[in-house]
């Protein structure tokens, strides 16, 4: 059962996000709200309280003093204030299928509130009501929400599919067989409306490979939101090369290809441009909405780094009011003076290993019921 303050805060935050959250750009205002959320989480979630009490002796006076929770903690412990309406799970590509992180989400409405205004600003800026622009045909290479109930990305694709600017939707990803290239070709051939293509970086590569020599020209004004390339498998995709191929094979210029940075464990997202106005991919920086603050932390001791210096990224996302806001990620990047984030990808390179067993192999080999130890404690 969630504490009343938690529920009330959820409503207040959802309203604030729907209004754009501009007042949270003020440092004091952000701090006040972050500390209120922190206090509510402490009250509602004894595990989090013990986690923080174990290392800090006093109450934080700023969000900067709240100990971040490592993103991998979502693999072991349900971190939630109140009952979960839905559980989102990570794909398991980075830590192995046996160690998927779980985000227990107590308010899907808060997720929608955090995501919607942000994706609308970045994907629909030129085609809102009254713009006179034609409605969009959505083609999604992200699984349909019904096919991936535990995917936060699919849930967001579902939100987008319900936007008034979207005239029709083609779900062109089969969980069994991957990208359905024929469906994409049919959908493009059946409309003159600009396409909004939602995709992971890898599905986009799969589409381009599947097209072979075929050049599939998307109608003018088409746009692409691609995501996922910054976690785990980023090394396999060179973004500049990918965007060049997109231009050549799909006829969509770089200015209309937007990268979304998000993670299952965070309900807010960052985008690296506005569709139609985005700059060259290599020069872009990602921007979160005003209710997220990001720091780059020194990898050795997690001390904060100044703008421009790369480190491990920690985000404080107020949309995570019902789980935990301050998260230490495994992503490398730097903050910019203008409040953006430059992503460098996953902390690179496999650890130097010898012939001692890795945790992944261990878990695979020993997946039998564990015996506990009896006796004095």
């Amino acid at each position, binding site marked *: 059962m969630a504490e009343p303050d938690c529920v009330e805060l959820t409503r207040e935050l959802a309203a604030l996000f729907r209004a754009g959250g501009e007042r949270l750009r003020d440092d004091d205002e952000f701090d006040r709200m972050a500390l209120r959320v922190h206090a509510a989480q402490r009250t509602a979630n*004894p*595990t*989090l*309280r*013990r*986690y923080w009490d*174990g*290392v800090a002796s006093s109450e934080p006076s700023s969000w900067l003093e709240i100990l*971040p*929770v*490592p*993103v*991998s*903690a979502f*693999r*072991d*412990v349900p*971190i939630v204030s109140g009952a979960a309406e839905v559980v989102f799970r990570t794909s398991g590509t980075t830590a192995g299928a046996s160690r998927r992180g779980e985000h227990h989400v107590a308010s899907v409405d808060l997720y929608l509130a955090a995501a919607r205004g942000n994706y609308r600003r970045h994907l629909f800026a030129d085609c809102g009501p009254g713009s006179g622009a034609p409605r969009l045909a959505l083609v999604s290479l992200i699984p349909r929400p019904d096919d991936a109930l535990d995917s936060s990305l699919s849930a967001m694709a579902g939100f987008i599919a319900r936007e008034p600017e979207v005239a029709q939707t083609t779900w062109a990803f089969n969980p069994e067989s991957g990208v359905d290239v024929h469906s994409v070709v049919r959908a493009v051939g059946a409309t003159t409306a600009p396409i909004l293509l939602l995709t992971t970086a890898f599905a986009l590569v799969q589409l381009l490979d599947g097209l072979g020599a075929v050049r599939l020209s998307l109608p003018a004004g088409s746009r692409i939101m691609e995501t996922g390339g910054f976690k785990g498998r980023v090394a396999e995709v060179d973004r500049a090369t990918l965007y060049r191929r997109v231009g050549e094979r799909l006829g969509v210029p770089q200015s209309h290809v937007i990268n979304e940075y998000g993670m299952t464990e965070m309900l807010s997202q960052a985008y690296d441009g506005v569709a139609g106005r985005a700059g060259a991919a290599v020069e872009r920086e990602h921007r979160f909405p005003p209710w997220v603050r990001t720091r780059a932390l*020194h*990898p*050795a*001791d*997690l001390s904060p780094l100044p703008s421009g*210096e*790369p*480190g*491990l990224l920690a985000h404080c996302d107020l949309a995570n009011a019902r789980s935990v806001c301050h998260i*230490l990620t*495994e992503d*490398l990047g730097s903050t910019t003076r203008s409040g953006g984030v430059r992503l460098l990808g*996953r*902390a*690179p*390179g*496999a*650890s*130097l*290993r*010898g*012939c*001692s*067993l*890795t*945790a992944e*192999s*261990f*878990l*695979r*080999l*020993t997946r*039998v019921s*564990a*015996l*506990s*130890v*009896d*006796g*004095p*404690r």
Partner: protein
Amino acid sequence: MTIPARAPDPGRVDGWVWPARLRPPKRLAETRAGELVVRHPQADSQASPALVTSLRAAAPDLLSIPVAEMVELLGGATDALVSGLDGDAVGHVAANAGMSTAMAAQILDGMAVSWNGETLRHLVAAEFADPRVLDGFVSGGARAIRAAGPGLTLHLGAGTVPGVTVTSMIRALLVKSAVLAKPGAGDVALTVRFAREVQRIDARVGAAVAVQYWPGGAEDWDSWERDVFRAADQVVVYGSDATIESVRARAPASTRLIEHPHRVGVAVVDPGRAPGAAAEAARAAVLFDQRGCVSTQLVFVLGARRAVRRWCASLASELVALEEVLPPGQAGPSDLSALHQLRGRLRMKGAASAGTGSEKIDLWHGERSRWTVVLASPDAFEPSGSRTVWVVAVPDLKACLRALARLAPVLQTVGLAGIDANRVDFARELCGLGVTRVVPLREVPYPEADWMHDGNRPLGELVRWSELR
């Protein structure tokens, strides 16, 4: 530490030594390993037959060398190797393995002992009642018997522990099998040095030895790998499950596989009877930066949790001291990130378990330290590397055995400290679980040359016996 926008230009090391009669490779590729770049031949479908043919052609000369002489030759190569290991050379080995120079020096000191002439003589004698069986038929009763290594042994070394490949090469040469060695990426510098010393010391043996690094499992090396798996009589493979499964899938049935998979090292300690055990456990965990199959990762300590907590604090003090003497190698952001994630995860698990009545998780680590001590229940254990020692409090040895049952598939070395009464019975129970080496904790890091490596005799597993009646 700062993360440079562009990595500094690293040093380079040659990742190949071919027999003198072969032309050197035409085109070289480069692969990063630790802080060095390994320069090695590019994948070339013409090169593998030439290399294999050359090594096979040298094999008869190997057979003509009496084993006693082979021991002297290899011992001599070791002596030359050791005397050539000046500060720069050790630094090179360390940089290649991604270890500190102090650690590399310590490892080389420890491992080179098992390669010297005296030790090799002992090894041969320990394995063969009459070592002359390696030189030809030896009569005994109604038959004569001989033991021989096959014509060519391919060695696939594991990642980044210096010396693993040299040990494997020496074993094959002792049984007079020609050697093609692919060292682990972090073990190239030492392997190449040793091969060069062998070539210098004896042309016949040198002609039967080749070293070549290549990125194992890479797509453009698949054809090369299939060729050498087919050409070799046996393949000694060190590596992860994925590596071993990949070799199994591609090697023909006629090629014998000798597998050394990754393992978890365990210690069992009675602190009341072993006051120095914390120091020994710390050393057993820290040496090789906890990358060795023998490296201790999990320690069972007899006693109540409160007493074991005190023992963990002493272990932590020993790890602090060792961080000065044997500093860890330079850590990249991924290693440091993994460390923060591990500690935070465990802290969160501990916070969650405190509310459920299940066993707590306690952690010790310094502000910027690379070591971590975790006191937890046995089911929480997962190998973490990076000088992470998991400690489990157990009331008695039976409880220890029950907890170890879960780890049976990955056990190899168990170090004992203060376990004197019922030691033999306990060892028998451990071996029943799959343990193949039970030794005093202080001896864990450096196995004797004649140890039962993963349950086999190190030379015995390489030879085939023949009889003449």
